């Protein structure tokens, strides 16, 4: 079956401004968007640039905007995209390096702001710290985050204001604040309880819609907001 792809192209060394280029290729049943990009790169246009690694929905490299919405290319079956031309663009809101490749550094810098690591002050036991399955369930979904950036770059608050920590960083904060073993919750809450933190979330749900791991990110941000408010009293 033939399918048309309209792909965002921009090479700062050659192009004065971005443009879209159309490719029509023969696709096979079961192909994902990543398969199509690989095919184009290998057989049609070697200058096409994009990121990919695991091709099994877990590394988070190939997040891009497909038909207007952020998704993982390796997870998106072409047959789910309707009949028309498939439009492929880089993630919005981040500087473009080339074609679908964006600079993820601002994303990771925001992540680093929330102390995204386990903090323990009291002495550790010889063996493991105990945690019941119920306590673990609280953070199970949040720990599934693959840091692909689809959520943060889908957020209108982040587009307008890149100082906003963004859903991914807040989710990471949740993952530690609600971890029964962690002791850095207070200092983390101090960081995210900020005008560029928690309170820039307006429940738009774009992050939740975009998350390739189906994490209800908004739900967890709401839990953090409630926690921060409770701490005011």
């Amino acid at each position, binding site marked *: 079956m033939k399918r048309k792809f309209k792909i965002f192209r921009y090479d700062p060394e050659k192009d004065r401004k971005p443009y879209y280029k159309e490719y029509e290729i023969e696709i096979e049943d079961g192909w994902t968007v990543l398969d199509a990009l690989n095919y184009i790169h290998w057989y049609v246009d070697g200058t096409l640039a994009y990121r990919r690694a695991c091709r099994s929905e877990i590394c988070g490299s190939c997040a891009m905007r497909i038909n207007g919405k952020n998704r993982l290319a390796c997870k998106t079956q072409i047959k789910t995209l309707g009949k028309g031309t498939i439009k492929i663009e880089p993630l919005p809101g981040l500087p473009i390096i080339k074609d679908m490749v964006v600079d993820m550094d601002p994303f990771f810098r925001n992540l680093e702001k929330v102390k995204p690591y386990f903090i323990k002050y009291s002495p550790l036991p010889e063996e493991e710290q105990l945690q019941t399955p119920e306590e673990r369930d609280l953070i199970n979904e949040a720990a599934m985050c693959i840091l692909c950036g689809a959520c943060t770059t889908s957020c209108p608050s982040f587009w307008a204001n890149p100082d906003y920590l963004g859903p991914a960083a807040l989710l990471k904060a949740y993952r530690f604040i609600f971890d*029964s073993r962690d002791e850095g919750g207070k200092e983390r*809450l101090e960081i995210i*309880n900020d005008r560029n933190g928690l*309170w820039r979330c307006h429940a738009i749900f774009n992050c939740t819609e975009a998350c390739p791991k189906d994490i209800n990110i908004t739900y967890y941000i709401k839990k953090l907001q409630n926690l921060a408010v409770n701490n005011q009293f």
Partner: protein
Amino acid sequence: MIGSKSLVKRNKGAMAWFLQRLTAIYLFVFLIAHFVIMHFVGSGEVTYGTVAPRLSSPLWKAGDLLFLIFALYHGINGLWQVLEDYIRSRGLRLFLYSLLLTLAVILFTVGAVTIFSVKA
């Protein structure tokens, strides 16, 4: 995991977020009642004669005052939230914040004068 009662001292938006929602609930009830009274029961005619008697009762005065405060809070804070989304510079944020605050004070004064001066 943090206890739910440890104190975060400086207000960095938590209370504004909370109050925005608290005032919303009052506004929801009051505004719908207001519209129903103004447009759905009675003649729908708005004259001094129909409005003033109601507004001069102390209970309505209290409700109106609360509405004025809450609506202004909700509106100004909402506007401020929108501006904060798009304005990143600290200086400009401060300037706009004072501008909104001034506007709130003016509107409150005008509104309060209305509420207290209405006589039947």
